[in-house]
């Protein structure tokens, strides 16, 4: 052993190198306050190890980036841990860097003769920020995509060469394959290589000048090994433990695959850039333009920091005081803005709704990707585009929610509110729904509502302008054709025979009828009792009711009930009553949405706009109807919560408010 070391020492001088590395003097004794630089070096090493591993499984292109990261995160051995370590260590690095910088300024470690090393540190800081920025895009998920869009658009605000800078960064005029290959080359190639080079210089120069001793009389002098190394190692282990715990218990997030056609209202930069995001949101800053807020101000701040050694040189102790004041001010400002941004987001219902949708999409994308068919060649983004569970709510919100609601909300989980009246403050009142709530469309509850309490079931349409107008015209003695649940034959049937329908004698019959009607709608994720369905069918068609209902049947008016909905529906057999053939089924729904005004449906009494292919394409209609009829691969993703109670409560207080307003006006 000794021979080997001697042999190496003769040729390489290992003893001298080791001695230099380990026995550097630490005047005033080892201290915890000296550990920050070492934790940064350690975190970087951690990033190199985990980064190489991720590199071995990552595939940079718009159709494979999200997919390969999904594969790492959810299928590869320890993939979630490796990605989690990389994800959280990157954040730890930014925090540690900020602490390091603040400490260097407070202790005056930037002053002569260490100015150059201070500048090297600033270069390192820029490289680390560049790494975090380029890394954020690589998973090609909605979050990274939209956040990085903001960054590259800020680049375009660079004076004179903005457009060129942006094109170079993106690898073209728009985001695409080349954006990823270029970002990846920066992230895994140029930036880490530069970091290694500058870090070597930084440590070399640091060794040349030695520690900036805080208090030489704190303790007897010692050496780097083992006293300071022990403290450094403990600190680094603490960092490692923290990021490992986060990686295990809070696996790194992945939002849905990036889709330029899908809005992402939850876009935010990584949390340590939130302060800048919030700063740019100040109206005063916005008024001065993007270049001012996003380039000039940060540039000036970095300039002031870079000039700190000169400030201290020229102004002496006063300069050092100024520098310390500045760095504390910056730190306080950053913390304050970060807290402000987080607090505002937490209290912003729109942002929270967008976040909820983002999480729903993310979970669904991962669920579909891990399905038995895996990911098709056109990428995971197409899985979501073809998924009724994802697209249905969006289509509903876009096309249906101006009249209808879905469990009280707009399909995407948000309650719809009126515009706030000019001059008034406070919460805007909920908008009155003017058509049926379709959240339980085609279910037993829906059928039960129609059969047992038709008027109440369709009460929402009484809020509609056309309904009130028609009611006025009727009151004035005019003749208007319109759908009025309150004075319909169906209402007569349900109200006239309610007692018999609800009575013991027909309780089993009612249950059977509901089962039959629900089975006709055939929600794909419901199971039906065949015997009960058959009994219900007989009741509907033949009317084997007991008591007062005896002799009545659904088929008496709805003569096609029990038949399947025709493939090519026409009005030749229209009876003047809405067809109940396959009522609530996908075929019925598609035809109804296209032609609600056909005689087989509501005819001239209809007020719902007919959605032709120019408004709702075949594909979109299919997605919407499949969502409404539950025809999609089963999911464990939590759906938007039911908001009917909130809506009803809101509408009640709205009505009460309206009364108050009138009273106020009268006074």
């Amino acid at each position, binding site marked *: 052993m000794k021979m080997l070391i001697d042999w190496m020492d003769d040729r390489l001088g290992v003893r*001298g190198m080791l*001695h*230099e590395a380990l*026995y*550097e*003097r630490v*005047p005033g004794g080892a201290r915890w306050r000296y550990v920050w630089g070492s934790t940064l070096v*350690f975190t970087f*090493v951690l990033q190199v*190890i*985990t980064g*190489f*591993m991720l590199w*071995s*499984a990552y595939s940079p292109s718009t159709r494979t980036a999200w*997919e*390969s990261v*999904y*594969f790492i995160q959810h*299928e*590869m*051995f*320890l*993939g979630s*841990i*490796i990605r989690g*370590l990389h994800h959280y260590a990157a954040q730890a690095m930014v925090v540690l860097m900020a602490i390091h910088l603040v400490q260097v300024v407070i202790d*005056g*470690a930037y*002053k002569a*003769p260490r100015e150059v090393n201070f500048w090297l540190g600033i270069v390192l800081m820029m490289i680390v920020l560049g790494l975090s920025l380029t890394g954020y895009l690589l998973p090609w998920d909605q979050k990274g995509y939209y956040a990085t869009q903001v960054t590259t658009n800020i680049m375009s605000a660079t004076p004179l060469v903005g457009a060129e800078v942006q094109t170079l960064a993106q690898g073209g005029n728009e985001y695409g394959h080349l954006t990823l290959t270029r970002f990846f080359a920066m992230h895994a190639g140029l930036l880490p290589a530069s970091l290694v080079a500058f870090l070597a210089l930084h440590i070399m120069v640091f060794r*040349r000048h*030695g*520690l*900036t*001793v*805080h*208090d*030489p009389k704190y303790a007897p002098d*010692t*050496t780097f*090994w*083992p*006293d300071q*190394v*022990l403290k450094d*190692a*403990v600190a*680094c*282990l603490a960092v*490692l433990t923290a990021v490992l715990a986060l990686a295990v218990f809070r696996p790194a997030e992945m939002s849905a695959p990036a889709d330029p056609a899908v809005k992402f209202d939850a876009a935010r930069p990584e949390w340590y850039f939130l302060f800048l995001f919030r700063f740019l949101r100040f109206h005063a800053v916005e008024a001065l333009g993007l270049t001012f807020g996003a380039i000039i101000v940060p540039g000036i701040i970095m300039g002031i920091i870079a000039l700190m050694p000169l400030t201290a040189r020229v102004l002496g102790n006063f300069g050092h005081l100024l520098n310390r004041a500045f760095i504390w001010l910056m730190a306080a400002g950053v913390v304050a803005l970060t807290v402000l941004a987080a607090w505002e987001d937490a209290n912003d219902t729109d942002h929270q709704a967008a976040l909820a949708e983002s999480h729903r999409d993310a979970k669904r994308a991962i669920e579909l*990707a*891990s*399905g*038995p*068919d*895996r*990911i*098709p*060649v056109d990428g995971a983004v197409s899985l979501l585009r073809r998924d009724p569970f994802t697209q249905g709510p969006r289509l509903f919100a876009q096309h249906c929610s101006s009249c209808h609601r879905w469990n009280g909300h707009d399909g995407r989980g948000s309650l719809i509110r009126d515009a706030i009246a000019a001059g008034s403050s406070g919460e805007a009142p909920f908008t009155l729904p003017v058509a049926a709530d379709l959240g339980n469309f085609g279910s037993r509850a829906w059928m039960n509502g129609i059969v047992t309490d038709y008027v109440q079931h369709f009460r929402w349409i009484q809020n509609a302008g056309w309904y009130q107008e028609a009611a006025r015209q009727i009151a004035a003695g005019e003749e208007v054709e319109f759908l009025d649940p309150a004075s319909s034959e169906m209402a007569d049937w349900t109200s006239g025979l309610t007692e018999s329908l609800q009575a013991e004698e027909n309780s089993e019959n009612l249950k059977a009828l509901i089962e039959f009607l629900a089975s006709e709608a055939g929600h794909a994720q419901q199971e039906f009792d065949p015997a009960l369905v058959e009994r219900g069918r007989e009741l509907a068609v033949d009317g084997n009711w007991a008591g007062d209902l005896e002799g009545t049947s659904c088929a008496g008016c709805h003569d096609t009930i029990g038949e399947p909905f025709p493939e090519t529906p026409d009005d030749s057999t229209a009876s003047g009553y809405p067809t109940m053939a396959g009522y609530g089924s996908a075929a019925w729904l598609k035809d109804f949405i296209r032609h609600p005004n056909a005689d087989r449906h509501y005819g001239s009494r209809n007020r719902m706009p007919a959605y032709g292919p120019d408004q709702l394409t075949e594909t979109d209609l299919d997605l919407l109807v499949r969502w409404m009829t539950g025809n999609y691969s089963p999911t464990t993703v939590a759906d938007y919560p039911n908001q009917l109670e909130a809506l009803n409560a809101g509408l009640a207080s709205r009505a009460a408010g309206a009364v108050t307003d009138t009273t106020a006006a009268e006074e």
Partner: protein
Amino acid sequence: MTNSSDEVTSEVAVSAQPDYPRRGIVRQAITAVLSFLLVAVPGTLGGLFFLDPILRRKKSADGTDSGTAQARKDSEGYIRLDVTRDAIPTDGTPVAVTVFDDIDDAWNRFSNVPVGSIWLRRSESGTVSAFNSICPHLGCSVNFRRAENDFFCPCHTSAFGLDGEKTNQIPPRGMDSLDVSLRTAGEIDSDGSEIWVRFCNFRRATAEKIEIQ
């Protein structure tokens, strides 16, 4: 404060300092162990991750196959070829045929894509034999040489008879024969015209024929 330390540091001469602090052997040991852990923990985790191809349980095994190629594949893995027995020359000349199947490649499923090429040969009695066209030597493609009436690999000159047996010492084994089943409308029938083949690849450079799962 800073100046004094600078002077001190500059006085430290590397080799002229023989008195290493020897005290605190326990402290040195603890420091060494902790420092080792700092590298060992991420190193081990990373190393295990890199061994994923060996350590990961294949997920495709429990998924139900439902790719588009399934229409032409049975539960035992036999795949129906586009070519029929009647289309193969009766004089024993081999024909090359492309086989289609679904491929699971990491996160992707490629549906009904070419997965390989085989040589088909019809005997005088009407039976059909199939060979994987990959050379068992080192994985190049085996060609049919009309002049020599044999199979030949241009990479390292492996040669095989039309029955697949090796005819020189270069390949470790004969060409890899594949199970063939003649059928009519999917039902086994030795006079059937449909050709179904259980396609698979085998490890190269081994004397034994070992299927790659």
